[in-house]
C-alpha cells in the first residue's frame, strides 16, 4: 500500500509539474557546526518534490531523517547550500533559495503558511490578537480579522475566557491549537504542517483534520509531517520518504543525529 502510494505519487508529480505550487529541485542542505569542531552534517541531498493545488504530501521517515529540516527549508527558515525552492506567489515562481528577505517575507505573508511544532510566544499579546494578526497584515480590517479569529478559536474549542489572555500560560494542547489557528485563519495557497496534531485530544484532532481537508478542498498545496497514522491517512494523498543521509564528518566520526541540532529557541 505504501509502495503503491509512492509510485502513484511519482506519476502524479510529472503530470502536475506545470501546475505545481511548491517545487523543490535538487535541494542540498548541510550543517557545519563551527562551535563543535567544524563537524559537517549532510541532511538533504538532491531532494526533488512537486506539490500541486489540492495535494497533501506526507513526509515520511524515521526520527532524525530531516523531515523538519525539509519544512524549515521550504519556509526559508533554514538556508540550503544549493538547489531551488519555487513557490507560486501571485502568479510567479519565487525562489526562496537565495531570495531577498523582503521577498521571502512577502511570500510568507500572502502565500505560504507554516504551523511549527511549538508556538513562539510573544509577550503580552492576547490569543485573539495573535490569531487575527496575520489577517490584519494582509490589510483585513480589525473587526473582520477578529471575527474570523474568534470563529476559528471557537471551532478549535479554546474557551472564550482565554481569548484575551497571552498564551504563555496555556497548556501544550491549547498552545498548539493557537498555533494552528494563527496559520489556518488565512487561506494560504501553500501550507507546511509540522506535526499539527501531536498533543491534541481526539475531538480536536478531528477538527484539525477537517481544517486540513477544507484547505485541500479550496486548492491549497500542503506538505506535512504526521506521525499519527490515522491523521496521515485522513489528510494525505501522497507520500514522500525522507531518508537519513550518510554522515559526512571530515573532522569526526561522531554519530550525531541531525535532529539534535534543530532550531535554537530564543
Amino acid at each position, binding site marked *: 500500500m505504501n509502495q503503491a502510494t509512492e509510485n502513484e505519487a511519482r506519476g502524479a508529480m510529472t503530470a502536475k509539474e506545470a501546475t505545481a505550487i511548491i517545487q523543490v529541485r535538487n535541494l542540498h542542505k548541510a*550543517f*557545519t*557546526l*563551527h*562551535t563543535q569542531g567544524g563537524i559537517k552534517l549532510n541532511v538533504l541531498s538532491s531532494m526533488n518534490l512537486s506539490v500541486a493545488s489540492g495535494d497533501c504530501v506526507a513526509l515520511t521517515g524515521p526520527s532524525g531523517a530531516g523531515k523538519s529540516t525539509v519544512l*524549515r527549508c521550504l519556509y*526559508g*527558515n*533554514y*538556508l540550503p547550500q544549493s538547489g531551488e525552492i*519555487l513557490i507560486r*506567489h*501571485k502568479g*510567479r*515562481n*519565487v*525562489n526562496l533559495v*537565495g*531570495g531577498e*528577505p*523582503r*521577498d*521571502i*517575507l*512577502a*511570500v510568507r505573508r500572502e502565500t505560504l503558511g507554516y504551523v511549527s511544532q511549538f508556538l513562539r510566544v*510573544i*509577550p*503580552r*499579546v492576547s490569543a485573539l490578537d495573535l490569531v487575527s494578526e496575520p489577517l490584519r*497584515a494582509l490589510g483585513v480590517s480589525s473587526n473582520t480579522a477578529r471575527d474570523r479569529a474568534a470563529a476559528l478559536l471557537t471551532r478549535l474549542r479554546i474557551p472564550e475566557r482565554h481569548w484575551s489572555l497571552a498564551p504563555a500560560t496555556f497548556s501544550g494542547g491549547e498552545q498548539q491549537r493557537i498555533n494552528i489557528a494563527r496559520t489556518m485563519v488565512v487561506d494560504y495557497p501553500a501550507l507546511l504542517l509540522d506535526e499539527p496534531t501531536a498533543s491534541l485530544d481526539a475531538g480536536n484532532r478531528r477538527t484539525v483534520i477537517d481544517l486540513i481537508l477544507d484547505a485541500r478542498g479550496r486548492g491549497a498545496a500542503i506538505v506535512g509531517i504526521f506521525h499519527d497514522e490515522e491523521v496521515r491517512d485522513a489528510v494525505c494523498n501522497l507520500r514522500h520518504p525522507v531518508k537519513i543521509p550518510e554522515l559526512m564528518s571530515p573532522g569526526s566520526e561522531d554519530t550525531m543525529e541531525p535532529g539534535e541540532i534543530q*532550531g*535554537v*529557541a*530564543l
Partner: protein
Amino acid sequence: MSRPDQLQPSGQTSGAEQPLLRVTGLAKSYDGFSACRNVSFDLWPGEILAVVGESGSGKTTLLKCISAQLANDAGRIEYLMRDGVLRDVQELSEAERRFLMRTDWGFVHQNPREGLRMSVSAGANIAERMIAVGARNFGRIRATATDWMDRVELDPQRVDHQPRTFSGGMQQRLQIARNLVTHPRLMFMDEPTGGLDVSVQARLLDLLRGLVAGMQLSVVLVTHDLAVARLLSHRIMVMQGGEVVETGLTDQVLDDPQHPYSQMLVSSILPA
C-alpha cells in the same frame, strides 16, 4: 536565476521602487583604529533591520555614521527624500540635514536622558519637534502631546510633569513619543530596551512592535539582545570586529546561522 518565470517576485516590491536608505562601503576609524569598515546595505520602506554583535563590534559607530551624528571616513550614505530622489546625506545643506533630523528621522538613545530635555515638561518634550515643523496652535499642540502620551501608555495627566520624575521605562516611552510625533519615516534605535527591567522591556517591545507596524516605519535597530532582534526585526546584520560577517532574514540567521561568529553568538544564549 535568469529564468523568465522567476523575475522579480511580489508585485509591490519590484520595478521602480527604491530603498529608503542605501549605505555603500562605509568606513570609520578613530585615530587609526578602524571601528567599522566595508559596510553596505539597503533599507526598504517598512523594513526593520537589526544590527547585532558584541560590544566593540562597531554597531554603534555604524548607527552614528548613518544617522549623520558622526562623519564617516569613506563610503556613501544615501537617503530617499520625500520628493522621491535618493540624495547623498553628506552633500545636503546644513538646513536640509537639520530638517531631516528633526522631522523625517528619529533617534532613540539607550539612555533616555540623552534624547530628552530633562528640565522641561513631558508635554514640551513632545511639542518641541512639532514646533520645529511649524505647529503654532497651542491647544492643538497640547492635544497632540497628550494623545501621544496615551499612545505610549503614559498617563496623559502627567503632561506637565518633568521627565526626571518618571521611571526609566516611562522616560524611554516618552523619548519614543517625542520622536514619533512628527511621523518620521526612519528611526535609529540604539539598545532601546537596554537599561530596563525585563517586564518593562516586554511592554516596551510590544508597544514598539505595534507602533512600528502601524506607522510603516523603517528602523535600524542596534542591539546585543538576540531576543529583541527576533521580536522586532525582519532582517539581521551580524557585526564582528567592525565588519558585517553575516546578513539575512532574522529567523534564518538565528535558527540556521552560517558564520562561526554568528553560531557562537546564538549558541551563547542562556535558556530562560
